[in-house]
C-alpha cells in the first residue's frame, strides 16, 4: 500500500512538473514573440528583461542568438526563429528548444536589431539566470562573471541566489559578487563598508584590481576603508609571492640537485672533474626519448609508464658510458686533475656530436605522462605537477644515495677512499674498483636526472651544457665529499637565484649569483661543508 501511495505521489509530481514546464513554455514563447513587435532598442531591452524575470534557464538560447545577431522573425506571421543565414537561405531553429525548423529563403525574415548596450544587458541577464542553474559549476562561473563585471541591477538576483545557495564555495563566490555589486551600486555607506570588509578577506589579485578601481572613484571614509583593504591585500599577496618564489627556488634547486649530485660524488670520491657530466644528463634524456618512441610506436597503452621504464634504462645506459669512460680514459690520468678535466671535455664534445649525428641537431619531443601534466592551486600559489614530482624525485634520489653511502658496505668503502685513499688501499679496499663503480654510479645518477629534466627542458644535444656550470657552482659552493653540502648548496643557490630574478632580471640575477659564489670562495675555498683534513694542500 505504502509503496503504491509513494508511486502515485511520484507520478503526480512528475506530471505536475511536466505540465508546469508546458505552461512556462507557452508564457516564454509569448514573451519571445514580443521581439517581433519591438520598435526600438528600448522595447527589445524590455523583452530581454522580461525573459530574464521568467527565471527559466532555457531562454539563454534565444538571448545568446539575439546577442550574436541570429534571432529573426518571419515577416508573414511574426514567428520568431533562430536563423542561421547561408547564401540566400536561412536555416531555422526553434528559439526555445533549439530543434531544427527547416530552411526558407532568407528574404522572408527580418533580423531583430541589437547594439552593444543591449548585448551588455543580455550578458547580465544570462549571468543572473545561470545563478539559478542546478549545476554548481555553472553557478560558480556566473558568480565569478558578476564579481569581475559587477552590475547594480543584479543585486536582487544575487540576494535571492545567496539565500538558496547550499554549496559553501559557491556561496562565498556569490557573496563576493554581491559585495562587488554593492560597490558599484548607490547603496548606503555602511553597506559599502561592509562590502569592503567582505572583499578585504578574499585577498586575491582580482579583488585588488576591483578595489583599486573603486578607491579611485570613492571618497571619504569609504575610500579610506578601501585603501586599508588594498594595503591588507597587498600584504597578503606579498606573502604569497614570497611563497611562490620559495617554491620556484625549490623547484630550480631540485633540478640543480639532480644535475649536481652525481658530479659531487665523482668529484668528492675521486677528485675528478668530469666535464662530460652534462652529457650523461643528456644521454638520460635521450634514453627517455627513445623509450617513448618505442612505446608510441608499439605499446601506446604503456605511455603513462614510460618514465618508470626509462629510469632504470637511463641509469644503466649512462652508467655504462661512465664505466667505459673511467676504464678507458680517466684511470690513466689519476693524480693529474687538470688533464682529466681536458680529456673529459673532449669526451663531452664527442658525445654531443655523436648524439647530434644520430638524432639530429633539433629538439626532440618528449611527452609528459598524464600524471605529470597540468597543475593546481593552493591559495594564490600555482603549482605544476611536473615540477612537484621532480622535487619529490630529487629528494628520493638524494635519500637513496644517502642510504647507499651511510648504510652499505660499498658506501663505507667509498667514504674511506674519499677520506684517505692510501690508507683505504692499505686496508685492503680495491680502490680502482671503488673508483670505477663510483664513477658509474655518478654517471648513472646523471642519467636519471636526464629522465627528470626531459620533462621540463628541451631535449637537444646541448641539454647538458646548460647545466654543467651551474652544477659545478653547486658543488664548489656546497663543498666536496659531503652529500648534505650538495643538498644545501643546490637549494640555496636555487632560492637565491629566484629571489634575485624579480629585482635584477633573470640574466643579471644569474651573474650576481656567480659573483657571490666567487666572493664566497674567498672566505671558504673548500665550500660550505668542507672535509676536515690535515694536509696543507688537500
Amino acid at each position, binding site marked *: 500500500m505504502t509503496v503504491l501511495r509513494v508511486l502515485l505521489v511520484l507520478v503526480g509530481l512528475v506530471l505536475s512538473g511536466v505540465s508546469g514546464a508546458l505552461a512556462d513554455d507557452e508564457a516564454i514563447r509569448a514573451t519571445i514573440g514580443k521581439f517581433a513587435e519591438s520598435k526600438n532598442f528600448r522595447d527589445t531591452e524590455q523583452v530581454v528583461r522580461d525573459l530574464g524575470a521568467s527565471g527559466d534557464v532555457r531562454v539563454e538560447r534565444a538571448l545568446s542568438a539575439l546577442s550574436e545577431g541570429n534571432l529573426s522573425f518571419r515577416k508573414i506571421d511574426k514567428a520568431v526563429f533562430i536563423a542561421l543565414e547561408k547564401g540566400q537561405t536561412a536555416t531555422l531553429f526553434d528559439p526555445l528548444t533549439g530543434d531544427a525548423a527547416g530552411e526558407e529563403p532568407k528574404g522572408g525574415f527580418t533580423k531583430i536589431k541589437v547594439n552593444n548596450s543591449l548585448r551588455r544587458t543580455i550578458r547580465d541577464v544570462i549571468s543572473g539566470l545561470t545563478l539559478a542553474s542546478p549545476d554548481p559549476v555553472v553557478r560558480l562561473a556566473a558568480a565569478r562573471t558578476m564579481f569581475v563585471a559587477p552590475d547594480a541591477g543584479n543585486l536582487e538576483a544575487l540576494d535571492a541566489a545567496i539565500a538558496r545557495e547550499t554549496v559553501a564555495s559557491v556561496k562565498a563566490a556569490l557573496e563576493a559578487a554581491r559585495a562587488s555589486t554593492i560597490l558599484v551600486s548607490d547603496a548606503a555607506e555602511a553597506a559599502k563598508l561592509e562590502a569592503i570588509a567582505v572583499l578585504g578577506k578574499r585577498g586575491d589579485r582580482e579583488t585588488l584590481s576591483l578595489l583599486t578601481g573603486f578607491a579611485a572613484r570613492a571618497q571619504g571614509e569609504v575610500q579610506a576603508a578601501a585603501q586599508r583593504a588594498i594595503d591588507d591585500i597587498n600584504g597578503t599577496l606579498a606573502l604569497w609571492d614570497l611563497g611562490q618564489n620559495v617554491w620556484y627556488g625549490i623547484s630550480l634547486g631540485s633540478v640543480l640537485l639532480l644535475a649536481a649530485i652525481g658530479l659531487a660524488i665523482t668529484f668528492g670520491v675521486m677528485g675528478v672533474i668530469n666535464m662530460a657530466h652534462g652529457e650523461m644528463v643528456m644521454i638520460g634524456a635521450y634514453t627517455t626519448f627513445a623509450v617513448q618512441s618505442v612505446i608510441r610506436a608499439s605499446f601506446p597503452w604503456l605511455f603513462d609508464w614510460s618514465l618508470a621504464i626509462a629510469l632504470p634504462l637511463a641509469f644503466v645506459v649512462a652508467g655504462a658510458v661512465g664505466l667505459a669512460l673511467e676504464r678507458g680514459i680517466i684511470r690513466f690520468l689519476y693524480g693529474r686533475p687538470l688533464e682529466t678535466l681536458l680529456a673529459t671535455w673532449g669526451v663531452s*664534445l664527442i658525445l654531443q656530436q655523436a648524439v647530434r649525428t644520430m638524432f639530429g641537431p633539433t629538439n626532440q619531443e618528449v611527452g609528459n605522462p598524464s600524471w605529470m601534466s597540468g597543475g593546481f592551486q593552493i591559495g594564490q600559489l600555482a603549482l605544476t605537477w611536473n615540477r612537484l614530482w621532480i622535487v619529490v624525485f630529487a629528494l628520493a634520489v638524494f635519500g637513496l644515495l644517502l642510504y647507499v653511502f651511510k648504510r652499505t658496505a660499498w658506501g663505507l668503502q667509498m667514504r674511506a677512499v674519499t677520506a684517505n685513499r692510501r690508507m683505504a688501499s692499505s686496508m685492503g679496499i680495491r680502490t680502482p674498483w671503488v673508483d670505477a663503480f663510483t664513477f658509474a654510479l655518478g654517471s648513472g645518477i646523471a642519467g636519471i636526472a636526464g629522465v627528470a629534466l626531459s620533462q621540463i627542458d628541451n631535449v637537444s644535444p646541448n641539454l647538458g651544457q646548460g647545466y654543467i656550470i651551474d652544477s659545478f657552482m653547486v658543488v664548489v659552493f656546497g663543498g666536496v665529499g659531503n652529500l648534505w653540502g650538495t643538498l644545501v648548496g643546490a637549494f640555496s643557490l636555487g632560492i637565491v637565484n629566484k629571489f634575485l630574478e624579480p629585482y635584477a632580471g633573470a640574466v643579471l640575477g644569474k651573474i650576481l649569483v656567480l*659573483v657571490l659564489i666567487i666572493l664566497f670562495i674567498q672566505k671558504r675555498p673548500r665550500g660550505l661543508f668542507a672535509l676536515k683534513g690535515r694536509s696543507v694542500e688537500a
Partner: protein
Amino acid sequence: MITQRLFTGGSNRRVLVVAVILAAVAVLVPALHLALPPSSPFHVPSYIVALVGKYLTYALLALALDLVWGYCGILSLGHGAFFALGGYAMGMYLMRQIGDRGVYGNPILPDFMVFLNWKELPWFWYGFDQFWFAALMIVLAPGALAFVFGWFAFRSRVTGVYLSIITQALTYALLLAFFRNDMGFGGNNGLTDFKDILGFNVQAPETRAALFAASALALALALLVTSAITRSKFGMLMIAVRDAESRTRFIGWRPENVKVFAFTVSAVMAGIAGALYVPQVGIINPGEFAPANSIEVVVWTAVGGRGTLVGPIIGALLVNGGKSWFTGVLPEYWLFALGGLFIAVTLFLPKGIVGTFDSWRAARRDAAERARTKAEEDAAPPPVDPVTGRPARTEVAERSTTSDLAGGPAPQPAE
C-alpha cells in the same frame, strides 16, 4: 734545415729563431701580398693573409695561457674573457670611428644605441674616439680584471681545479652580461660594421697587410718578453710555485704575488691579442666569451707543449689550420676530431709536440753519449780527479743536465 736549427740549442736560441722567423713573416707576407700581381705564383692571396693573421692572434693568446699554465701551474679556463675584453676595447674604438657613416647617420651614437633609442653616449664609451685611450684600455681592462680576480683568488689559496672552475664561471658570467642589451656593448650582435682604423680603411689590402704585420710582430715581441720573464729569477720562482707551492711558501716567498703578476701579464697579452683579432675579422660579439672557446685555447697550448713558449704558437697554428681544413672537408666530424685531440693529447702526448721532441732528443743524445763514454772508458782508464782521487765526472753528463733544464722543465701536474 730550419726545423733542425729550431729544435737544437736550448729554449733561448729556439725562441730567438722563432722570433726572427715571425719578424721575417711580418715583412715577407705583406710584401708578397701587395707587391706581386695575383697571377704570380708567389702571390699571397688576401684570404690567406686574413686567415693567418687571425691565427697569429690566436697564437698570442695561447702564448699568454702558456705563461700562466705552463710556468705557474694556473689552468685558466677563462682566458677567452681577457681576449674578448681587449677585443671589445678595440671594437669600441672602431665603432666610434664610424662616425656618421652608420645606417642611422648619428655622428656620436653607434647604430645599435640609436636602434635602442638611447639619447646619449654611456659614460664608459667616453674617450674611445681617441686611439691612445682605446690602446690604454686594451691593456688596462683585462689587466685590471685579472689583477682583481687573481688578487682575490690567489690570496685565499684557491688552486687547482677549483681555480679552473671559477675562471670558467668568470667568463660565463661575462658572457651572460655582454649578451644583455642594457650593458651598452651591442648585446647579442656585438660590435661590427667597422670602417676605419687610425684613418685607414679596415677593408683595404694595405691595412690588412699592416694588421698582419702588427700581429706577427706583437707575437714575436711577446715571445721575447715571456722568454725574458721565464728565464729571469722571477721565472724560476714561477716554476717553483708551479712544482711545489707550499714549499715555496715555507721558504719565505709569497706565491700569491707571483701568481697575480703572472696572471695579470698573461691577461694583458691576451687582451692585446683580442685587440689585434677584432679589426682582422671585423666583428666582436659575446660568443667570444663562451667557456668552450677558452677551453679550446687550452688544447692549442697542450698540443704544442706547455711550458715551452714556442710550443703553444705551433699548437695554435696547427690546430686552427687543421680546423679550417677539417671544417671545409668534413664539417660534421670536426667536433669528433677536436674531442679526440683533447683525449689523445692528454693520454699520449702530455708534454705536447715540442716537449715530446725535447725529451726524445735528450734521450737520444744521452744514449749516444753513454755509448761514446763507454767506448772511451773501454779504450782508456777513467780519468782520475787529482784532488779527490775519484773518477772525474764527465763534462758531457754535466752538459746534458743543464741543457735539460734549459730545454724547458718537464710539465708537472698542478697541485
